[in-house]
């Protein structure tokens, strides 16, 4: 397969600047089970990068290992030229890296507004609560009800919105459209464009590459805990067939 070396494929991106997030030879384990076998990837400032791959190939594990949610890991992760491998978990967010988990992580014992206000602001430049309520009027309407009373789509928006408040410069976003109705998927797509226009970088895990094609600048494809392909959005049409096979669509 062409361009299987992610490093060389990534070289023309970012106009010669160093990547904002640089992952090299990242390995991770669940107990004895070796889940990542040396993952390389780059996200340049302002980019939306999508991680594709079949179920169980290690996409979530990659995000969790980058964030430090999996402690049994090896390799190198640099965010803005600074290694975050040895930072305690609560210091990682403070470097400007936000995380939205696959299961969304809305807290049942917190109201919608408490969920929104929970993540501490880590840097200037985040959205204000007014701006967020302006974009998501239904969150304002339901702000006193328990977070988990929201619909799946609203929970996903809340999960993203609360990270926007914190002023992080990059978001790791795990399957935001999973299990959502097409209209809601549409809204999430709009939302990701807003993020992009604010200059936020996004590392997105997404099964639906047609959805991802509309917002992503660059793609990585994973299989069995390894990167097997890397290409830019311009190359997507030429890859569609190969991807359909690789992803088993």
């Amino acid at each position: 397969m062409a361009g299987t070396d992610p490093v060389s494929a990534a070289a023309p991106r970012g106009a010669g600047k160093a990547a904002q997030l640089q992952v090299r030879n990242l390995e991770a384990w669940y107990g004895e089970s070796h889940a990542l076998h040396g993952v390389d990837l780059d996200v340049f400032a302002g980019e939306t990068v999508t991680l594709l791959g079949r179920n169980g190939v290690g996409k979530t594990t990659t995000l969790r290992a980058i964030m430090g949610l999996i402690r049994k890991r090896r390799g190198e992760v640099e965010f803005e030229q600074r290694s975050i491998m040895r930072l305690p978990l609560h210091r990682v967010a403070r470097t400007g890296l936000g995380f939205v988990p696959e299961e969304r992580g809305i807290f049942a014992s917190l109201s919608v507004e408490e969920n929104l206000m929970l993540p501490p602001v880590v840097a200037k430049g985040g959205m204000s609560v007014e701006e967020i309520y302006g974009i998501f009027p239904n969150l304002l309407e339901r702000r006193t009800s328990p977070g988990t009373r929201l619909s799946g789509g609203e929970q996903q928006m809340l999960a993203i919105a609360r990270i926007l408040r914190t002023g992080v410069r990059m978001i790791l976003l795990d399957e935001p459209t999973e299990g959502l109705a097409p209209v809601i998927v549409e809204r999430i797509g709009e939302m990701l464009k807003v993020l992009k226009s604010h200059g936020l970088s996004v590392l997105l895990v997404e099964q639906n590459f047609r959805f991802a094609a509309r917002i992503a600048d660059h793609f990585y494809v994973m299989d069995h805990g390894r990167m097997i392909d890397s290409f830019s959005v311009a190359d997507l049409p030429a890859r569609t067939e190969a991807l359909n096979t690789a992803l088993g669509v």
Partner: protein
Amino acid sequence: MTMIFGVPLPALMGQLLVGLINGSFYALLSLGLAVIFGLLRVINFAHGAFYMLGAFAAWMLLAYAGIGYWGALVLAPLIVGVAGMAIERLMLRRLYGLDHLYGLLFTFGLALLLEGTFRHFFGTSGQPYAAPEALRGATNLGFMVLPNYRGWVVAASLVICLGTWAVIEKTSIGAYLRAATENATLVQAFGVNVPVLLTVTYGFGCALAGIAGVLAAPVFQVSPLMGSNLIIVVFAVVVIGGMGSILGAIVTGYMLGIVEGLCKVFYPEAANIVVFVIMAIVLLLRPAGLFGKDS
């Protein structure tokens, strides 16, 4: 004389008051246990020892430093809280990754160690501790005579319990605590220093036991075993209310104190076991406890 179900009113009221006093201690102690268990998933068997430590801190502050009741009411819980934080930081923390049984065994051993140490220096006979000047005497309420100090204990424990509940349910610090109780790892990934939150929470739970100890000092005597006598009932209270439920711990604490008091009037033979009978029934019908969520 007014009679209710064949019992003179003052006798009934007297036992109700005793029940309410005991309930105040049950509520304060089970509240601390519930807060600690909710976040740390540690069944704090040392809770009775921290209660004893609070009472002894008050007694020693008076005996060795001349600091009276009101000073002790502030200082003793602080001392107990700091001791709790040190223990969490230096020892308990190492057990988080392991089976819950280790936390239970560790705190049980800690309780034995603390109680044994105090027994070595003070013996098993209690030390008297006088109620403060301002709260001596009694007030005639018409239907009964209320010793002022006992009224104070009930009022103080109510204020502390409700205040704690309000902080947990209504403030942003409380939101961190609730969220971390649900998913501590995610809260830490958001940038909250969860290890410090755990330390402070354990210290706070222990400080609540310390306050209960100071409040108890003038009611019971200050003795090394005062905690282990009480804590068994308190564990039953926590099981009945539902592990980890804040409001459940408070309400069940008062409720069972009152039930125990009433039992002394109507069927004294059962007064000592009624809490455990209720626990057995609750466990059969609602294993998660009266206020617990099934999970």
